[in-house]
C-alpha cells in the first residue's frame, strides 16, 4: 500500500518554531502531529527564589505578542496571595490596556498572518499589492492597539508601567481622551474588515469541541471571570488545577493540556464566543450575525471572523473605558508581603492564561506554574489536523500541505508561549 508523507519543517506565519508531520497509508491517517521544537526556556524554574513582585515583568518575556496577558495573570495571582484588592479605577485601566493587546494581537494574526491563506498569498506585503486599502486599514487598526498599550502601559512590547497592585503612574486624562477619535474609527474599521473577511471561501469543517473560557455575568471576559466549559463546568479560577492538567509528550517541548478525564479542550476566540456571545455589545453581535456567525461557531477556519468581532468589541469597550476614565489615585494598591499561594487567570488573545505562585514569608517564589493557551490547545490542534487530513485526503500534496498549515494557523498558535512551534511532514504511502 502506498505511503504518503507531508513534512513542514518550519511552519510559517506563526509565532515561534513548530513543525507538522502527517503520515498516511492508503486512506488511513497514521500520524498527524503538531510538534513544537522551540527550545524550552524554563521560566517556572528560573523564577524560584525571585521576588513575587518580579513575576509580571519576568513572565511578560514569555511572549512578545501577548505580554499583557502574562502581566495581568501574574499580577492577579500575587495580589491574591498578598490580599490586595485593586480599586475599580485600576481594574478599568488594566482592562483598557488589555483591549489594546487584543486589538494588536488579533489584527496581527487575522490580517497579517491568517488572511493571506484565504487569498492564496504568502504574506501581507503580497497582499498590499492586490488589496492596498485593506492592508493600510489593518495596519492602522493594529497601530491603534499598540497606541493603547503605549499610553497605558508605557511600551507596546513588554509594557513598563504595570506592577503588582496596579500602575506606576496613572496616564493623564488628556492622553486617554486623545485616543477616542481613533477608537471611534477603529470600531467601523474592525467591522469592515470582519465583513470583508466573511467573503472568504472557508473549507467546510466542524469540530466537536469542548469549549473552555472565562465567563462573566456582565461583560465579555477579558481580564476577569470564572472558568466555564460548554459541558457545564463552572469553577472559580482557583479550582483550575483540580479540573485540568498538563502532560509531557516526547515529541514536543510544549506541555499538552487536557481535562482531568483525558479529554482535549479548546480555548481562545471560538470558546469565548460560544460561552459569552450574549455579553458582546449589540453592535458587535450584529457584526457577528452579518458575518454569518451563529450562536456557536464550530468551523475553526472561521475563527478569523470571531477575532475581528472581538476586535470590534475591544474597540467599543476601550471607547467606553476611555470616556469613563478616572485616573486611579493611588495608581497602585500595595500591601506587605506574606506567605501564601495565589492564582490568576485572564483571557490572552489565544485563550486562557493561568498562573499560580506559592510564595514564602519574605515574598520569594517557592513554586510557579504557568499554563499558557497554546499548550492547552495542542491536543485539540492535533485532533483538528487528523479530522482535516481525513476530509482532505483527495487533495494533492501541495494543496494538502497548505490546508494542514492553515488548520494550525486557525489557532494563532503562539509557540513562544507554549515554549514552543511547526515543521510539516506529510508521509503518504
Amino acid at each position: 500500500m502506498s505511503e504518503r508523507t507531508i513534512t513542514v519543517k518550519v511552519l510559517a506565519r506563526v509565532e515561534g518554531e513548530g513543525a507538522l508531520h502527517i503520515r498516511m497509508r492508503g486512506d488511513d491517517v497514521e500520524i498527524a502531529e503538531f510538534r513544537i521544537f522551540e527550545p524550552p526556556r524554563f521560566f517556572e524554574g528560573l523564577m524560584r527564589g525571585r521576588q513575587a513582585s518580579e513575576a509580571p515583568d519576568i513572565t511578560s518575556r514569555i511572549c512578545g505578542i501577548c505580554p499583557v496577558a502574562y502581566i495581568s495573570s501574574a499580577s492577579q495571582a500575587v495580589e491574591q496571595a498578598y490580599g490586595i484588592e485593586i480599586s475599580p479605577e485600576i481594574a478599568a485601566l488594566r482592562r483598557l490596556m488589555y483591549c489594546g493587546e487584543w486589538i494588536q494581537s488579533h489584527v496581527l494574526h487575522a490580517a497579517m498572518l491568517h488572511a493571506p491563506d484565504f487569498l492564496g498569498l504568502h504574506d501581507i506585503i503580497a497582499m498590499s499589492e492586490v488589496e492596498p486599502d485593506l492592508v493600510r486599514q489593518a495596519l492602522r487598526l493594529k497601530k491603534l492597539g499598540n497606541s493603547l498599550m503605549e499610553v497605558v502601559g508605557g511600551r507596546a512590547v513588554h509594557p513598563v508601567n504595570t506592577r503588582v497592585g496596579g500602575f506606576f503612574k496613572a496616564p493623564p486624562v488628556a492622553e486617554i481622551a486623545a485616543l477616542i477619535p481613533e477608537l471611534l474609527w477603529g470600531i467601523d474599521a474592525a467591522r469592515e474588515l470582519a465583513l470583508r473577511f466573511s467573503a472568504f471561501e472557508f473549507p467546510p469543517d466542524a469540530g466537536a469541541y469542548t469549549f473552555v473560557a472565562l465567563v462573566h455575568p456582565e461583560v465579555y471576559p477579558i481580564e476577569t471571570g470564572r472558568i466555564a466549559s460548554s459541558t457545564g463546568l463552572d469553577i472559580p479560577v482557583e479550582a483550575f488545577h483540580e479540573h485540568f492538567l498538563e502532560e509531557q509528550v516526547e515529541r514536543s517541548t510544549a506541555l499538552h493540556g487536557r481535562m482531568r478525564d483525558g479529554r482535549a479542550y479548546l480555548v481562545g476566540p471560538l470558546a469565548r464566543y460560544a460561552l459569552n456571545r450574549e455579553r458582546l455589545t449589540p453592535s458587535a453581535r450584529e457584526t457577528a450575525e452579518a458575518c454569518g456567525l451563529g450562536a456557536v461557531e464550530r468551523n475553526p477556519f472561521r475563527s478569523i471572523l470571531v477575532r475581528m468581532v472581538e476586535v470590534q468589541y475591544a474597540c467599543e469597550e476601550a471607547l467606553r473605558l476611555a470616556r469613563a476614565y478616572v485616573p486611579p489615585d493611588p495608581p497602585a494598591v500595595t500591601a506587605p508581603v506574606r506567605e501564601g499561594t495565589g492564582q490568576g487567570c485572564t483571557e490572552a488573545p489565544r485563550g486562557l492564561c493561568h498562573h499560580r505562585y506559592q510564595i514564602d514569608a519574605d515574598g520569594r517564589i517557592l513554586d510557579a506554574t504557568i499554563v499558557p493557551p497554546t499548550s492547552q490547545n495542542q491536543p485539540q490542534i492535533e485532533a483538528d489536523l487528523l479530522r482535516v487530513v481525513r476530509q482532505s485526503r483527495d487533495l494533492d500534496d501541495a494543496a494538502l500541505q497548505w490546508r494542514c498549515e492553515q488548520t494550525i494557523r486557525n489557532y494563532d498558535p503562539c509557540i513562544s508561549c507554549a515554549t514552543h512551534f511547526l515543521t510539516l511532514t506529510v508521509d503518504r504511502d
Partner: protein
Amino acid sequence: MERPRIAIWKFASCDGCQLALLDCEDDLLALAGVIRIAHFPEASSRTEEGPYDISFVEGSITTEEDVRRIQEIRAASAVLVAIGACATAGGIQALRNTMDLGDLSAAVYPEPGWLDVLATSTPIADHVTVDAELRGCPVSKVQLVEFIAATLAGRTPDLPDVSQCVECKRAGSICVMVAAGIPCLGPVTRAGCGNLCPRIGRGCYGCFGPVTGANCAALTAQLRGLGLDEAAIGALYRSFNAGAAAFATEAKADV
C-alpha cells in the same frame, strides 16, 4: 539598484523583537519598497535561499542544533545583526547559566530526559562574528528602522552609547534615585529605550544592558546606601541582561 535582501532568524526568545519590525505600521510598506524580505518565517510563507545582504538574528543559543544553525546563517549573510537582549546577552533564560539544568528541567517538565538542550543560554557573538548589535528587551523599532535606513544610505547608524542618565537629562526627567530614593540601573544601562521608566517614576531595570564602561561597583555602593540588601542588588543585575559581562560580574560580586 537591486533591493538588499533581508533575512530574519529566530533562536530562543519571545518573538517580541521581530514583532518590532511588524510594529513599524507606518513604515512597513515603505520599507518593503526599499528592501526585499527574503526570509521571515513569522511573517511570510515565502522564503528565498541565501546569500542575504543583512540577517537580523533574534534569540539566544540554547541547543546543539542552534550552534550549527547560527554558523550556516553567518556563512549566508554579508552583515549579521544581533537584535535584542536574548541575541546580545542570552536573555532572561541566561539566568540558568548559574543554575543547575537538571533542577530547572525537573521544575518544569515531568520527563526532563526527553529534552535536548545546552546547560547555558549564550549570545550570538559567543558563536559567530556579529557585525552590529541592537540592544533592548525588546529592541526599539526606531533603532531598527534607523539601522536599515543608515545601511541603505551607506552611513553609520546613529545608535546611542551613553547611559540612561543622559537620556533622562535630555528628556528633563527628574532623577528617581536622587529625588525619591528609588533603585535605578540608569547609571550603568545603555540609553535607547526612550527614557521609558524614569519618566513614570520607576527605576530603570536594565532592558538595554550595560553601557560601555559601566561602573557597576559605584552603583552597587549607591544601592547599598539606599538600604538594599545583597539579594535585592543581585536580582537587579540578574534579569533580562543577566548574561552581559558587566552585569554578570557585578551580580557575582554581590550574591
